[in-house]
């Protein structure tokens, strides 16, 4: 795959999937280091622990890190609390990603998306072609047979590569355990200060949480199944503070992973609409 492109990169979102993907890359290129940079699209609203973890991990593996935020966001002081999840995600994730890809002219970008996350992702290719506007066209996807991938592109077009397409959430955790891969501590249950916001239990992560919400703050035993922007990511009640307990919880789970994500529920078919515009 790397041999097929001029300027590849790996999208590093700091979550568990990214951690596994990074680990796989380290293994694949050993004894060399992976010959591409990590790219983090910072929405300015990530959990603080994520950013700490990112900097520590990148230093350990010794790879180049590109951090990018959409400058428009800082200008208007973008906030999911006041601007709503849709505008925030459009500007700080979808737009920001397109901007950083254009700026660095990356022609192939690894992503950690999995087909089991959401219905429209279930139809995503492993090598997903994007036109020069980064748009995904579900009707014009390249067929993928056996392990043969078509990586041919013209100038300014790109390919998103999803090596974890066929992994499930459970596979991810079992592999993290088997390979002893470090992950952000937020995945493990602990006493945390949380508040109710838009029907979710969100973490009081910094001083930007609106004061009126803070009145209801409680300390509860919670963990996160996925990590994104802290005001948009719901915690779950859980006492799973070890990998064994997380895997066990997974085996008996009755809700899906992304049920804790506000952005999937904006409207029916919302993930598909985001993808058409260039979201991962």
């Amino acid at each position: 795959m790397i041999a097929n492109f001029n300027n590849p990169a790996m999208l590093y979102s700091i979550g568990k999937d990214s951690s596994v993907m990074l680990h796989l890359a380290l293994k694949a290129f050993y004894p060399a280091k992976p010959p591409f940079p990590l790219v983090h699209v910072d929405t300015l609203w990530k959990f603080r622990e994520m950013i700490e973890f990112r900097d520590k991990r990148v230093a350990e593996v010794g790879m180049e890190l590109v951090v990018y935020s959409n400058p428009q966001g800082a200008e208007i002081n973008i906030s999911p609390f006041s601007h709503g999840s849709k505008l925030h995600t459009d500007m700080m994730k979808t737009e920001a990603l397109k901007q950083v890809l254009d700026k660095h002219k990356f022609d192939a970008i690894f992503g950690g998306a999995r087909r089991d996350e959401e219905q429209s992702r279930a139809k995503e290719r492993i090598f997903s072609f994007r036109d020069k506007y980064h748009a995904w066209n579900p009707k014009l996807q390249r067929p993928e047979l056996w392990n043969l991938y078509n990586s041919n592109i013209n100038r300014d077009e790109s390919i998103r590569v999803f090596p974890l397409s066929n992994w499930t959430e459970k596979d991810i955790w079992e592999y993290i355990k088997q390979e002893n891969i470090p992950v952000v501590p937020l995945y493990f249950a602990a006493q945390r200060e949380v508040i109710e916001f838009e029907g979710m239990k969100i973490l009081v992560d910094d001083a930007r949480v609106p004061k009126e919400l803070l009145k209801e703050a409680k300390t509860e035993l919670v963990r996160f199944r996925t990590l994104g922007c802290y005001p948009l990511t719901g915690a779950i009640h859980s006492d799973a503070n070890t990998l064994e307990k997380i895997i066990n919880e997974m085996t008996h789970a009755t809700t899906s992973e992304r049920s804790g994500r506000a952005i999937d529920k904006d409207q029916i078919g919302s993930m598909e609409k985001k993808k058409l515009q260039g979201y991962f």
Partner: protein
Amino acid sequence: MDNLLLKFMTCGSVDDGKSTLIGRVLYDSNNIFSDQLESLKVISKKYGTQKENIDFALLVDGLQSEREQGITIDVAYRYFHTSKRKFILSDTPGHEQYTRNMATAASNADVAIILIDATKGVSLQTKRHAFITTLFGIKNLIVAINKIDLTSYSEEVFNQIKMDFTDTLKTLNIQNTETSFIPVCATDGDNIVIKSKNTPWYKEHTLLEILEDITILPDTNNNVRFPIQYINRPDENFRGYAGTIENGRLYVNDKIKILPSNKTTTIKEIITYDDNLKSAVKGDAITLTLNDEIDINRGDMIVLESEYSITLTDTFEAMIVWMDEENSVLNKNYQLNIYTQKVNAKITKIEFIKDMKTLRNFKENFLKLNDIAKCTLQIDKKIVIDRFENIKECGSFILIDKMSNKTSCAGVVTEITNGKNENIFLHNHTITKELRAENLMQKPLIIWFTGLSASGKSTLANELEKTLHMQGLKTYLLDGDNLRSTLNSDLGFSQKDREENIRRVAHLAQIMLDAGLIVITAFISPFAKEREFARSLVKKEEFIEVFVDTPIEICEQRDTKGLYQKAKDGMIKDFTGINSPYERPINPEIIINSKTLEESVNQILDYLKMA
């Protein structure tokens, strides 16, 4: 982890209840999360066809536009697990316009579930599914006979479908497959996860049990194939060759050769991130170091030195599925990807196209979307290529259109033809069939009559030729009278000779068609195989099969040549209809029965006018 993983696909149409079956499997094995169930209930109300009940079909119809159309148009994947196994299910629609999607799913699956509607039995669609899935590498089939409730849970219906399906595999020449059959009712869940009380005669396992216990037929070929994917050079002192072992097992110190350069050396180390290994096997991603410095490129193949018989290939035959909206062009340059190798390739010949509606072979100069065809391909470099049957990973390829960058086709190698037929040059004549036809001002055709002895073929063929001739058309009638005494005078009436007789007739008709003529043939041609062969030699619209369906009692009464009497008296062996079978055409273009001569000729003329 991988031993536990089963990848399977489902084939069938919405009408067969396929989506419902999948939804059932997921629901009954507790693989639907409560929030998904909630959202399913909301969607069911908006789009569902099951009134207030949950429409399981909607669970698997992914994209929104498809949801609104009520059909799935691509491959959708579902992941689930039971205490015994993990599953990846790929779901594809079944109509012939989705052949490419089905081929895609088949290339990535171990098992195919073929759904049959019990009230309809084995259909052409069933046959198509069996053909495509096995062609692209599936060896384990599960035939789920659905809607068994609508047959009052009939064991007879089940057994009949089982027999018909087994026959289908035979006729399609599908070998080395394992098939299990299971009666189910997807809407009620009979025999899906829980054994049904309604089918006490069915003693085997439920669908989920079969999926949990099935063992995939293992590979039988152990020849080492290690294609180089990446040259790993972190610094001056280290040079490693990274890739995945596609077949066999490699050990440290193995004597190997690198193809195509044919240089030999030995393996120094097998390196992985965790540890160096003593050996590595098919599927392992490794980096090798070698004891000699050799110039090696991406796409080169490492094999054992002891594999003397391995040859390099630049010409081969393959079955391919065309996946591009743009038609194929003979001798156009495409990019061929096979394992980690990329070469230039062209299709030099289309042997035949299999019509996915009828499963008949026909001839054409180009391939269009969803065509499956046998072709000869030539590449611009000699490389290692295996037959798909022997080593899947080194016998499967894709072609990419270099202009549009689309994946134009995928194929499996059926035969290595290096050197063979080398001395036969097909001349491209300046004057083509089309030019001759233009000169004759007519559309060349083969009108192939078939039917019992004394059914009236020759009389009808003769009358038809007369009529066409009077209209100024250029025709020729081939029958036993003018062939048995000339071209085929060396042939007798044994089974073998009768087959050879028809083979020659078929080719002669093909040549006369090429001359621009309207060729009429009148032979019993009792075997479907022979008639299909004749059809496969020409374009789809150039062959018209006319079945003269006169009942045998009437033929016997007529007995114009006294042959039926002789056969009954035992004086003629292998007489069609008496002591040798006549295989009735399944989908002939025209069927003639109990009409006057004039009506029959008019029926054919009407067809020709429309065609």
